[in-house]
């Protein structure tokens, strides 16, 4: 049976940077078997890597037991990923808001501080990137990337 769109892949991973490489590769391979190009899959893999890295490094408020949730919605014409973390500290959330919100336009790469480089790469590789923070400081980032090839599968 052929893969039918849209579908969702949900991943829960521990707050451990070592788990990210297998996860990013997994999502890339899922996209390839769904008919997306290797280039699209690789770029999506970079997006997943950067957001998960941020979620683990800054969004888990030092809790070793906390989890990150990655939800990938795959449509025939786009890839959407939502990454939810266990809640960051107030200063980190402010930095995140600033990194996502303040730079409305794409900044020249030389103006970006090294700590905000991951999100800037995500911005370059995606169509939209939105941040939401709930009352418990739980953060989720929603990124949409549209496929580039001319004839997507139906």
């Amino acid at each position, binding site marked *: *049976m*052929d*893969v*039918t769109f849209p*579908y*969702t*892949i*949900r*991943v*829960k*991973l*521990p*707050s*451990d*940077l*070592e*788990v990210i*490489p*297998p*996860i990013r*590769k*997994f999502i890339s*391979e*899922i996209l390839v*078997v*769904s008919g997306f190009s290797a280039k699209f899959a690789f770029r999506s893999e970079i997006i997943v890597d950067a957001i998960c890295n941020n979620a*683990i*490094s800054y969004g*888990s408020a*030092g809790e*070793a037991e906390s989890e990150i949730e990655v939800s990938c919605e795959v449509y025939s014409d786009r890839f959407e990923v939502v990454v939810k973390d266990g809640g960051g500290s107030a200063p980190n959330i402010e930095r995140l808001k600033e990194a996502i919100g303040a730079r409305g336009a794409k900044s020249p790469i030389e103006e970006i501080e090294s700590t905000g480089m991951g999100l800037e790469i995500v911005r370059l590789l995606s169509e939209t990137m939105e941040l939401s923070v709930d009352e418990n400081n739980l953060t989720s980032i929603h990124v949409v990337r549209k496929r580039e090839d001319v004839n997507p599968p139906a």
Partner: protein
Amino acid sequence: MVMDKKSSLTMEISSDEGYAEVAVLRVCGALDFSGITMLSNVFEKLFGEARPYVIVDMAGIESICSAALGEFMGYRKRFVEQGGNLVFAGLAGNVRSKLTLLGANKIFSFYQDVRGAVNAYRWDYKKHSKSVSIAFPSFLQFVPPVRQFASRLAKQNGYSAKDAFRIETIVDEVCNNAVEHGEAGKGSEVEIKVSINKEKIALSVSNKSDPDKVAVLKELVKPAMPVSHVGDDDKRGRGLALIKMLSNELDVEITERGTSVHVTKLREE
């Protein structure tokens, strides 16, 4: 916190990582010859407090001299003798390069940040398990990425290529069964949970049952059916027989609502 006024070097011990035996030493400034006495005093204090696992947070270090590195090596040996370790976390690029050039990476473990070092401690000393769960639509095309994920996770956590390949084969068989014999159609999902620690990997795969296949599946997993029952021409049950051969524990639960397979594989190498 201790501070050397001449060089503005500071050292601070924290113990907020949840384990009494783990100490985080935050060092800021230039760690040169004049800071060695301060370093030595801090380590002696940690010995006195019986905290043999020391994470040196180097994020604030501007430079480090070879004599200071020698001091770290000497104390690392003593901490290891006490059943602990001394590891580095948060090394900036230039300091990391220098330490690597000096060959320190062959003696000390480097971690990206303190949390990474604490995770390593939990993994090595507390036999802590890492769990990843994946829910994917019930399509056979998704099984190869899932099996490769399990293999990569095992290798990433120090399992041998042979162990990783066996885990990959188990995941492939269990997930193929879940897709082929579980409920099909839009919205059907297979969920796999992989829990890995230093000694074993545990897999749980669950899916909704296909009502038409429940009776046949129950027959196949009857405990009375030995592995040798599977003949050369018998295609049914080979997957389960293979999983039994490759794993240390296999438990299958089949009900009208869902099927769950639990497999445990001990680390061999």
